[in-house]
């Protein structure tokens, strides 16, 4: 295709640099230009060629599209066909783009905010350092352990070591700890309410040496277990006068006793 140059003159009608569309080369010329949303028809005639100040005559065109076209026609009557046609084409294009501008301003417009390189770099570097200072894994683990200690998880995770440590430290009545329940067993024996049942299947099988101790009342096996309880208790009574650390191991020992007796109880029950 043949390449064409653009004309840099602001009064040019088509925008291309041709002999027929150069405002300097033609002594009778017309253009349509718009200013602040209003369209004007500019005309240049040969009579005013000597007066550069008055050279371009300007006519305001009406806002109505058809009326404006008629105005162009009556102003450029007897002018060459080419100029008239091109003026009307240019006017059409201008009105179209004005309409589009008005429509776009109503819609939401994207505001471009430029990135500042130095600031971006600084923020990235600070973020890396903050990440290292944060030590996220440790912080999360600490927080989870804290929550475990504060019993937010309730009964899901049972760690007897923890419970017995508490017993050691506090040495006071803890209603839910197993040690106290065992001490009171003498009274409860007659009622047979509190019993120690070893749960054989622990849901959390990943945990090492997790003996899940549950205090549950089973009224069916009262009598049989009472007997076993008394026997285990007598052995435990024998060991009670021992010192603290031995006492601490006492619950473990009793667990073993219960293990031995339990299969017995189960067979009896069955």
């Amino acid at each position, binding site marked *: 295709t043949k390449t064409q140059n653009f004309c840099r003159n602001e009064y040019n009608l088509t925008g291309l640099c041709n002999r027929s569309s150069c405002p300097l080369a033609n002594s009778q010329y017309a253009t349509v230009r718009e200013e602040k949303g209003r369209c004007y028809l500019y005309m240049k005639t040969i009579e005013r060629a000597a007066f550069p100040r008055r050279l371009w005559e300007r006519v305001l065109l009406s806002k109505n599209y058809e009326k404006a076209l008629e105005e162009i026609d009556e102003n450029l009557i007897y002018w060459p066909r080419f100029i008239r046609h091109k003026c009307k084409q240019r006017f059409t294009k201008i009105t179209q783009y004005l309409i589009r501008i008005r429509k776009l301003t109503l*819609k*939401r417009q994207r505001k471009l905010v430029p990135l500042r390189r130095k*600031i971006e770099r600084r*923020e*990235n570097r*600070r*973020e890396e*350092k*903050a*990440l290292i*200072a*944060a030590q*996220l*894994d440790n*912080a*999360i*683990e600490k*927080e*989870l*352990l804290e*929550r*475990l200690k504060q019993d937010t*998880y*309730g009964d*899901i*995770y049972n*760690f007897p*070591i*923890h419970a017995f440590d508490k017993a050691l430290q506090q040495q006071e009545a803890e209603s839910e700890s197993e040690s106290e329940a065992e001490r009171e067993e003498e009274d409860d024996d007659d009622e047979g309410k509190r019993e120690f049942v070893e749960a054989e299947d622990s849901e959390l099988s*990943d*945990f*090492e040496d997790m003996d899940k101790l549950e205090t549950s009342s089973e009224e069916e096996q009262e009598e049989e277990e009472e007997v076993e309880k008394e026997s285990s208790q007598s052995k435990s009574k024998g060991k009670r006068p021992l010192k603290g650390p031995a006492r601490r191991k006492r619950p473990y020992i009793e667990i073993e006793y219960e293990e031995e007796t339990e299969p017995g109880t189960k067979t009896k029950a069955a």
Partner: protein
Amino acid sequence: RVLFPPTFSVSEIKNKQRRHFMFLRWKQQQRKEKLALKKKRRKEREALGDKAPPKAVPKTIENQRVYDETTVDPNDEEVAFDEATDEFAPYFNRQTVPKILITTSDRPRGRTVRFCEQLATVIPNSHVYYRRGLALKRIIPQCIARDFTDLIVINEDRKIPNGLVLSHLPDGPTAHFRMSSVRLRKEIKRKGKEPTEHVPEVILNNFTTRLGHSIGRMFAALFPHDPQFIGRQVATFHNQRDYIFFRFHRYIFKSEKKVGIQELGPRFTLKLRSLQKGTFDSKFGEYEWIHKRREMDTSRRKFHL
């Protein structure tokens, strides 16, 4: 005149190679001296035994932080009263259940789309809707009508998500964050299986000032109140030096004192840019806090969250 003994400074050597060599040698010397000093100090400590002075705590930025006057005291009544009456009160009184709408800016690219999906799996009771050129101002009343409590808009630039607008819907505050270092699930190493449908727990770390407190409550309001401990999932928002790191883990208690965590789910970091009082309104909104670079970034030890 020449000083006696003559000293040669490293920087006066014109030859680059030789200068570089001398500089390396000088550096090695410095390191040796430092090591010797450390050893000596350690010997002195051991020699003194019990009478040794306590170890000096190294200065960190967190230690040297400029004291912010808006730091929340846990026993502050005014703060407690404010929190009982602000926009999150219905959530914290368990009157509302969070329902979240996640959307993006126009024409989201692949990464953003995938990130939105993953975010939707992480946050329970959330829905992703794509925005085809809809104005935010018009979708907000629709959301309120459909009973959504929160709106998240992820802004995208050059095919990666880089901004997050979080707004609490029934006329709640709107926070605008700059999002960086977004990692999708497949980019995380040693990740676990997909996050399940259980409600995760929430950990909010280090939100100390009033502003930090309100932002923390905003994040907490995204998740339902009662976490399902069976799921063993935890979402963490950790604030460090004004950067909020989000992580999603699955934990397991191996024993009393040990817990193992496994990262699943996307991760990203946020930096607060502005906090508006009402819902999202760029022109007429009343800003509670804007990050003004000239005023607020003057000191390296001053943080706002």
